[in-house]
């Protein structure tokens, strides 16, 4: 849309153009506000509706009917007065709602009266032996290649882990004719029991369950069976992955493969809400840190709202509704609708959010990851990929008395690389808690040290040209 960068100020800035951000932008449009929608990708849609505007029809069909929803969401923005800026990295956000960004190659600092964070989730990084070998990727990365470029594994694939996305990707690959050498489900068997009490309530939202069962059935018909209750999974190889080994029904197995895609659920991407100083808490059920928000998405920082998977994992449909709720609240805060009007417009979305509560406890219990997987990587397993810090080095730091995440980081450099700890923050918290007996909130998370995404000296130097020593 715009080749020039964003203006210096907007009444509303929405960060993230996935389902939550797109829905928020659409709901806020038409109220006479100055709105910018910023996203780091080249095109709108977020992870789930990635490449929605450019995908060939045939490939879109493979991805299933849910994927198609993205067309309307994106269309609504294209036809609105919202200024949409793709290719825009956010490297800083503070409580004054100043936003540091890089658009294209140029850096800028802009501000907003209201900010909606709709940055979504990241795949939960889980370190296991061999996870850093070339040829081992997140399932999400496999999906990106499929959606954006139609690339599928030529020599077949082993899929492993736990979570809904794993099943979905297996199903999509099956439809694309990819050879699935094995589908290893690391969800522990006793999760079935753990989830059972939540089942009756979950049946109130059974469309989720039915979809999952359908995927399983389709896979089975295609001759792909899921191995349940797999443990001790690891990738082996010299230069790159050559095989995957695991335990199943008390026996050790090995499969040859040059590609392993794993998935262990998704967690909110909280670096921006953390940078802004929003309050976060540890959610035992979702096994992740979440920003604290009220039912309208207001965070603990005035004027910063959060919607979608960045608040807690709820999926694409829920993200849309949550996005609309935050937008309506922001529009109210900016004086464009009354509280009464906001409530009226939000009725349907609030109803959805309430119903959504039916299914979550069941899914969360069902996909609950065993502590062993999260907190007990072997000493020689790399935890921080950027700085190549092993679990053993972290445990050594702990044994020397460094008993919180930040001290471990200072001593080992774990989390000091360009990814800013995105890949290892959770693991470090788990390992420290596991080794010290402290609770996860006591151990804490890495303090955010902006920029969230790297910034060149030239880009930084281009800011505030009038400022002098």
């Amino acid at each position, binding site marked *: 849309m715009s080749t020039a960068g964003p203006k210096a100020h907007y009444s509303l800035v929405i960060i993230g153009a996935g389902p939550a951000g797109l829905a928020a932008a659409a709901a806020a449009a038409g109220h006479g506000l100055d709105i910018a929608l910023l996203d780091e990708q080249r095109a709108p849609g977020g992870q789930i509706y990635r490449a929605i505007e450019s995908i060939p029809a045939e490939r879109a069909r493979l991805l299933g009917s849910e994927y198609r929803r993205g067309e309307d969401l994106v269309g609504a923005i294209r036809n609105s007065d919202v200024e949409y800026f793709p290719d825009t990295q956010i490297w800083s956000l503070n409580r004054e709602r100043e936003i540091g960004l890089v658009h294209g190659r140029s850096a800028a600092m802009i501000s907003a009266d209201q900010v909606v964070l709709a940055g979504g989730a990241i795949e939960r990084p889980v370190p296991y032996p061999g996870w850093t070998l070339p040829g081992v990727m997140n399932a999400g990365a496999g999906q990106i290649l499929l959606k954006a470029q139609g690339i599928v594994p030529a020599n077949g694939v082993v899929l492993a882990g736990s979570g809904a996305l794993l099943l979905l990707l297996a199903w999509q690959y099956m439809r694309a004719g990819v050879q699935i050498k094995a589908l290893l489900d690391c969800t522990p068997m006793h999760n079935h029991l753990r989830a059972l009490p939540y089942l009756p309530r979950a049946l109130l939202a059974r469309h989720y369950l039915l979809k999952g069962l359908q995927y399983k059935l389709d896979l089975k018909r295609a001759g792909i069976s899921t191995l349940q209750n797999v443990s001790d999974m690891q990738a082996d190889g010299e230069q790159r992955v050559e095989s995957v080994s695991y335990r199943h029904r008390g026996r050790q197995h090995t499969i040859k493969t040059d590609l392993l895609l794993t998935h262990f659920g998704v967690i909110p991407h909280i670096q921006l809400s953390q940078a802004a100083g929003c309050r976060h808490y540890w959610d035992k059920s979702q096994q992740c840190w979440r920003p604290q928000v009220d039912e309208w998405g207001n965070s603990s920082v005035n004027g910063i709202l959060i919607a979608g998977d960045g608040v807690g994992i709820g999926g694409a449909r829920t993200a849309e509704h949550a996005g609309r709720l935050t937008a309506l609240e922001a529009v109210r805060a900016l004086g464009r609708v009354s509280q009464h009007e906001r409530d009226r417009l939000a009725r349907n979305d609030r109803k959805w959010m309430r119903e959504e509560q039916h299914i979550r406890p069941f899914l969360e219990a069902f996909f609950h990851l065993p502590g062993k997987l999260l907190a007990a990587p072997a000493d020689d397993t790399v935890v921080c990929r950027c700085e190549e810090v092993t679990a053993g080095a972290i445990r050594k730091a702990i044994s020397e008395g460094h008993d919180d995440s930040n001290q471990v980081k200072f001593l080992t450099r774990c989390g000091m690389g360009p990814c800013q700890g995105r890949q290892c923050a959770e693991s470090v918290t788990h390992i420290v808690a596991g080794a010290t007996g402290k609770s996860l909130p006591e151990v804490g998370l890495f303090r955010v040290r902006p920029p969230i995404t790297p*910034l060149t000296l030239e880009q930084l130097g281009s800011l505030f040209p009038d400022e002098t020593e």
Partner: protein
Amino acid sequence: MKTDTLIIGGGLMGCSTALQLAKRGARCVILDKDSPGRHASGVNAGGLRRLNRHPAEIPLSVASAEMWHDIESLVDNDCDTRFPGQIRVAENREDMQKLQERAAMVRDLGYAHEEIIEREALYQLVPALTPDCEGALICRDDGYGRPFHALNAFRRKACSLGVECHSATRVDQIDRARKEWRVITPKGEYRAPVLVNCAGAWAGPIAATLGEPVPLKAGAPMLMISERLPRFIEPVIGAASRKLSFKQMQNGTLLIGGAHMAELDFKQQLTEMNWAKLAVSARTVLALFPQLKDARIVRTWAGIEAFMPDHLPVISRSSTSAHAYHAFGFSAHGFQMSPVVGKILSQLILDDQTNLPIEPFDIRRFQKDR
């Protein structure tokens, strides 16, 4: 609990003091409200610099440099120290003149560690520097270390000699009765005949409690660091007329400082980057090293430090109470001084004297003004 000496603050000053006392057989306990090295001592730029010190600090800084050069014998660890020299670049004639005057002043005080180098020698040492600089002031065996590692080495060595270090133990109240200090913390009461105030940016209220208020101001200098780059520079670089401290660390990352301040919420101990000032800092680096324009900054942070109006520390007996001592207010250049400060305090405590000239750092200098 009871001990010989209570030290408030588990930064470098506190740990260094405890280590020197323990070496001579005294028992001590360090109390820190947070964790060791959480503040200035753990997050500073690690510069080991005698170059361009205030004349009053030179004797201490020189003595401290000797200790750093042999740091392994003190703390059983090299603290990742390197001594490739520190350089202050003159970008023009005026700068050069300023540096020459400085060098002459230091020589007149009887020291030889600061020398002028001309253009050619400068470019031999720093070929990557932008052309057309005039020369520099150099201190050849200055260098840098890794602060959090140094802090831990000091602390561990002290603990191996019997020092106790209590984290999450904030000193809330101090009084003296029957020849003993009594210090109250949320974790209980501590007693000792001797009290040391090494509380960094939080030292002011403690001095005030002892009846000797000081005009200490907390500030939060910012630093930024780049991704790892191929090695292209050895010495630490500053500039005669710019705010800059610039070095390529052991692992190839560039550490950039310049005494620009973050916004500080002192009560909450929260800092917020001032990007306008960091932008100035980036421009300064690019003026001297334009080839770094694509180097990526990956992290920025600020540390909370105590600043005195004259930028000189307080290293002093208490003027109001016997058996109380202060070492704080290092105004963003205390890392280098920390070994000698511990030594001085231990001498004051155990011998009631020191061989180093500490009059300029007396806490009474602020009382005279009032």
